[in-house]
């Protein structure tokens, strides 16, 4: 008997090895390497583009000739190639849907032979804390497929770096997610439980994956052939930890919830909620004083309830206002503000050069490229006051820089925010451009925000004489790009 034990052991190992081989074959045929050449816009010199960048990522087969990957893998892509691990050739791919707010995308390959023999990777559920998962993909450090194991160490709502403005459920694993891993599946028990998407710059061996609820939300959304994005409740809320505050707001002892500070313009709750309303429950689930709801034994941000819904659906809020509690059905919308605080991808940078002055709409992309404290301040002000109800300014316009020319004894403007054109504040960039053309007496006077900036006066006739020369000298290929024109 003692001699059989090792035998059985060997057999078991062999079976296990065979199973592993099969699993590897399946993964090799379903986990794809993505080669991308991308060229983001230059928001500093918007008539130019910077050098194209080459990068690789991962993707996996989800059926119906579709591969799932990260939005950031395919953003601003000018050329997209995909390669199976079990075949030598790289084929042209194209993006079907992209969700920048959840960092997911679906791409396809028009050559149907690419998908031959490929097996769909099935989706699983949310992995348990401390359970082991495998990140599969093509991270840097080699050419072949790689599998890294890690333990699920945290499940919580956290910022998604790709858009800079969105937070969703994310799963932290103690395995490094390296460049190239992005878009690859994270597997558990032979099923996909997430998509690897970001690492931690200051942490070692910390990686994050997009879990199933977010993946399902994205796939449900694109089912109609169009990606709407996540609905945005748009509620700034405050905790009700403070007893005096609770009493002041008339919240009875024992009742829990959060206080509404503001309903963001252009989001779902605009006009429905107001300052000092108290939210007690969402879809019947009580909201705790710290703004969490208990789901499956975990305390998650109450906005998580909206995370599982699509645009057009409703969410029910239990609201206390003026001492009365009532139910409010909120139809869900995306956040439609033109300056949403999200990084823009796959969008051309808007600009306008006139008389040697470069004007751009204020975007996060611009701020990240050429921003300063003053601009960040204005952007913040825009959120807290300017974008308030009844405010007509939908976008801020910035005089980005001056292209000096002998015809203008220029003063170095740098990031001056346009306050008015001939006395009228521009509603948005398009409106600004319209106003710049006209002007009584053939002149336009532009005034700026700030302590004491000099105004700018453009004499249309004079500008017309040297505009072309300025564009030519500075290599400005077109004097403007405005969306929709």
């Amino acid at each position, binding site marked *: 008997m003692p001699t059989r034990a090792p035998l059985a052991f060997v057999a078991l190992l062999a079976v296990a090895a065979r199973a592993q081989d099969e699993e590897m074959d399946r993964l090799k045929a379903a986990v794809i390497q993505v080669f991308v050449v991308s060229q983001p816009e230059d928001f500093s010199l918007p008539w130019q583009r910077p050098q194209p960048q080459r990068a690789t990522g991962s993707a996996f087969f989800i059926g119906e000739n579709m591969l799932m990957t990260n939005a950031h893998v395919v953003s601003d892509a000018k050329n997209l190639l995909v390669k199976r691990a079990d075949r030598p050739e790289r084929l042209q791919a194209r993006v079907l849907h992209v969700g920048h707010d959840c960092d997911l995308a679906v791409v396809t390959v028009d050559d149907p032979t690419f998908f031959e023999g490929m097996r769909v990777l099935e989706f699983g559920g949310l992995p348990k804390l401390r359970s082991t998962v495998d990140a599969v993909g093509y991270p840097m450090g080699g050419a072949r497929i790689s599998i890294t194991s890690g333990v699920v160490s945290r499940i919580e709502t956290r910022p998604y770096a790709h858009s800079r403005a969105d937070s969703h459920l994310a799963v932290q694993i103690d395995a490094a997610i390296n460049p190239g891993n992005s878009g690859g599946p994270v597997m558990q028990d032979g099923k996909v439980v997430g998509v690897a998407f970001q690492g931690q710059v200051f942490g070692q061996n910390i990686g994050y994956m997009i879990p199933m609820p977010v993946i399902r939300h994205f796939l449900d959304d694109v089912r109609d052939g169009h990606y709407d994005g996540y609905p945005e409740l748009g509620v700034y809320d405050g905790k009700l930890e403070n007893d005096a505050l609770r009493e002041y707001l008339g919240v009875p002892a024992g009742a829990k919830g959060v206080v509404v500070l503001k309903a963001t313009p252009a989001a779902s709750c605009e006009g429905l909620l107001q300052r000092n309303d108290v939210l007690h429950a969402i879809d019947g689930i009580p909201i705790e004083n710290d703004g969490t709801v208990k789901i499956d034994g975990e305390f998650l941000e109450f906005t998580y309830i909206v995370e599982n819904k699509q645009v057009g659906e409703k969410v029910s809020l239990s609201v206390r206002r003026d001492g009365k509690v009532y139910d409010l059905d909120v139809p869900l919308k995306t956040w439609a503000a033109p300056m949403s605080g999200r990084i823009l991808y796959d969008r051309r940078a808007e600009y306008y050069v006139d008389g040697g002055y470069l004007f751009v709409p204020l975007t996060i992309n611009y701020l990240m490229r050429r921003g300063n404290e003053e601009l960040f301040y204005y952007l*913040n002000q825009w959120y807290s*006051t300017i974008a308030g109800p009844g405010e007509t300014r939908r976008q801020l316009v910035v005089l980005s820089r001056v292209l000096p020319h002998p015809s203008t004894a220029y003063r170095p403007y740098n990031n001056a925010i346009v306050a008015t054109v001939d006395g009228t504040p521009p509603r948005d960039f398009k409106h600004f451009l319209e106003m710049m053309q006209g002007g009584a007496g053939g002149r336009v006077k532009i005034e700026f925000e700030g302590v004491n900036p000099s105004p700018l006066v453009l004499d249309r006739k004079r500008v017309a004489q040297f505009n072309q020369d300025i564009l030519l000298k500075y290599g400005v290929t077109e004097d403007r790009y405005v969306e929709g024109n």
Partner: protein
Amino acid sequence: MRRAILPLLFLAAAAAAADDVAPKLRGALVKLHVTSQGYKLDAPWDKDQPNTSAGSGVVIQPAVILTPASNVADHILIEVSVANSARKYPAKLKHVDYGIGLALVEIADEGLAASLAPLEVGDPVRLDDEFDVYQLGEENVLERSTGRVVRSDTDGARLLLQLKTTCSDAGNGQLAVRGGKVAGLVVATNSSKQEGTLLSVETLRHYVDDFADGDYRGCPAGGIWFHPLLRDDLREYYGVGDKDHGVVISRVIPGRTGDGVLREGDVLTEADGYALDDEGMFLHETHGRLAASYLFRGRRYAGDKIPAKALRGGKVVDLELTLRAWPDSERRVPERVVDRRPEFLVVGGLVVLELSSELVGERLRSLGELVLRRYRDRAEWDPPDARKRIVVADRVLADPANKGFEDLSKEVIESVNGRKILEIKDVADALEHPDRGFHVFRFEGLENDYVIRADQLKEIDARVAQTYKVTRSRYLAGDPE
């Protein structure tokens, strides 16, 4: 042989001159030993570290020393010592003006006063002029270094001369001497770069003369904002011909110089007899190109009238500007909190202060500070409301009663209990009128209300005071020191 002798002769002459000067200086140059102690702006119930430092001054009248104002700021004790003696004598502040940056200190000891001889203020020094700089070094031994003017400058109220100098960094007010007379006081030295700034003879005289007539008026303040007219587009827009030069008035602060006389859009071409250029500079007969703010602030006294010319609607208009002072007490955001305890309140753990330039650092740590800096920069007209001061919740001393508000920092208080806050005493007044049993602080641009139960306030304040060793929970003007 001849060629060797000549330099030797020169050297002998220089030595003789120095010897002449030394006894005069020993009777006029004093060292100030000032122990100062300000208040902590971040914990205004406490005084700061006491600090004793040395500076220099010059006797300009019997028993009266002229010295930079910074030497006496927040002083507790002023002592003076003289050359070649270790003894310190008590002295007291006679007058200080932080606007012009000068002070007069009086020697109490009659014997010492009698042993000193005032030094005369000499002629102005200008670009390229060289002079000696004296101070009393360690053991009160007379030390000499040199300086040379490399640039004339003005900060509005003062005519300043930028120096290359061999001065040490040992204290402000080192004495510049030329031809045996006072040529200025050296401040802001940077010995590693061999740089310093000279408070000019003009500025010293301006201050001393003002004080001498017994009716101190001080420097007028700014308050006129303008745009340069360097660009053709603006010149055309404001109808300024090629031969005309000046600046376009963009704003006149109510109650200050130019109010009611200058209008927005006027092109100011002349002030006090000097022509302005398109950048707002003028040509000074001794010091060359200087900013026009010196004409409004540094050359005359508050209350003086000066002539001015402007282009208005294409025509030249002759104007008379009354130069007005603008004391810190009348500013929404005072420049400095010095020689006095800052006004403050600690309410329910909230530390409430009035915004001063000092409170807003140049280095910004948070958006809150950026907002405060914006207030400082344009406080006098924006927002256009009745506020006398900008009242700020500087920080929160965490207590069970303010749970959830710990992170609040540097927010501008808009109202308390529904009452608009125009200055800090309004906060104290508003606390007499709770809102349905609560004290409710509302902040600008922030939706979080800071709520404290009115009936618990005393108890909370006592607890906070004990926990954080807040020795007094308020100081408002009129409160006992």
